[in-house]
C-alpha cells in the first residue's frame, strides 16, 4: 500500500525557480521581511506538492479562461475577468479579514468546501500582520 503518510523528503524533486525570496531595495535579499536564506533552501521545494498547490488556483483559472475563449470567443473571458477585477476591489484593508463575498459568488466558491476552508483558516491564524507594513506592501511602497 503506497502511503506517503509522514515521509516528507521528496526524492525526485526538480530544482525550480519559483521559490525565490523577496527582493528589497538595491536588489538585495530582504532579510527583515523574509528571514535568512540559503541557495539550497530556495532551489528545492520542501514538498512535492508545494509549488503545484501555490499555483493551483491560477492554473485552473488560466485553463478555464482559455477553454472559454476557444468556445465562445474573446469577449467571454474578457467580460469575466473584468467582473473579477471589480469584485476583487470590494475588500477591507489587507490586515483585516474581508469576506470576499462577491468574488466567491462569481467564482462559484460559495457552493463548495475544500481544504482551504477547513485547514489554516486565515481568520484564526496566530500571526497578525502589522498594519503599516502590509499597507506599504500592498501599495507598492514597500
Amino acid at each position, binding site marked *: *500500500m*503506497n*502511503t*506517503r*503518510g*509522514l*515521509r*516528507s*523528503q521528496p526524492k525526485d524533486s526538480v530544482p525550480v525557480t519559483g521559490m525565490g525570496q*523577496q527582493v528589497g531595495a538595491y536588489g538585495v535579499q530582504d532579510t*527583515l*521581511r*523574509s*528571514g535568512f536564506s540559503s541557495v539550497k*533552501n530556495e532551489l528545492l*521545494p*520542501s*514538498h*512535492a*506538492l*508545494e509549488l*503545484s*498547490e501555490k499555483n*493551483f488556483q491560477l492554473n485552473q483559472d488560466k485553463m478555464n479562461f482559455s477553454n472559454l475563449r476557444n468556445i465562445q470567443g474573446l469577449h467571454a473571458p474578457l467580460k469575466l475577468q473584468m467582473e473579477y477585477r471589480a469584485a476583487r476591489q470590494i475588500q477591507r484593508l*489587507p*490586515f483585516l479579514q474581508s469576506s470576499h463575498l462577491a468574488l466567491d459568488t462569481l467564482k462559484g466558491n460559495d*457552493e*463548495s*468546501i*475544500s*481544504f*482551504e*476552508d*477547513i*485547514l*489554516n*483558516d*486565515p481568520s484564526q*491564524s496566530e*500571526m*497578525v*500582520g*502589522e498594519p503599516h*507594513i*502590509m499597507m506599504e*506592501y500592498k501599495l507598492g511602497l514597500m
Partner: protein
Amino acid sequence: MATLSVCQPQLGGFSFENCKRNAVLEAEVTKLGCNIPSARKTGTTICGVVFKDGIVLGADTRATEGMIVADKNCSKIHYISPNIYCCGAGTAADTEMTTQIISSNLELHSLSTSRLPRVATANRMLKQMLFRYQGHIGAALVLGGVDCNGPHLYSIYPHGSTDKLPYVTMGSGSLAAMAVFEDRYKQDMEEEDAKRLVRDAIAAGIFNDLGSGSNIDLCVITKGRVDYLRPHDMANKKGVRCVYEHEALPHQTGNYKYKQGTTGVLTKSVIKLDLEVVEETVQTMDTS
C-alpha cells in the same frame, strides 16, 4: 518566525512550512535507529457488489497502527448522501476527511440543483480531488449508490484513477475477497444471495489477512431504502473459537484449570500466628 514581518495576507489550506524541519528531524531520528510514529491505517478488506435492485457494500472493522490493532470496531462505511455510501481503505484520517468533504460538497450541489445526487458526480469530485494531491492523500475507496439511472459501483484509487465495475474489492485483504467474488458472482442476484456473497468475501479477508479482522459490516442500498447493518456478523468474538461451515456449534476456549485433588497431599501442618495488641488510639472525626 516572530522576527519576520507578515507582508501578505495568509491563505488557507495546506501549509508546507514545517516540511524541511520534518525532513531534518526524520534524518536525525533514523541515524539514531528509532522510527517515527506511523499513521494509523485501516489495513482493510472492503468490497461491493451490484445485485438486481441495488448495491451491497461490505467492510471489516479493524484499524491497525503498524503491528498493533488500534480499533477493534471502527466504522469503515461512510455516509456520502442518503442514496450513496462509500467504504474507505488506506490512511484512516484521509478516508474520513475525504468522505466528509465530498459529502458536504454533494449536499451543497444537490441543494443547488434540487435533485438527488448521482453516484457519477461523487465519483468525479473524488477523483479530481485525489488527483490534485497526486496520491499524497492515501484514500482507496469503494463508492456505491442508487440514483435515477440505477445502481452504480466505483472503485477509486489514491492517485485518482477510477473503475466502474459490477464487483470491486480494495484494501490489504482485497485478493482474498476477490477470489470469493470471482468464484461465485452472478449477474442479477437476489438481495439475500448478494448479502451472503459479500459476507463470505469479507470473512475470507478477515481470516486470511492480518490487517483485517473483527466484525463484518454491511450496507444494502436500494431505490428508496438503505439498510446499514452494523454489525452484520461477529466473525471474531473474544473467547469463542471461530465457526467453520462444517462445525455445528462454536465451542468455548478450553478450561485449563486442574481439578481439586489432582495433586495428592502428603502432609499438612498449620501454624497459628499470635498477634499482640501493642497500642490502641482513637481519633475522633471532626463532623461539625
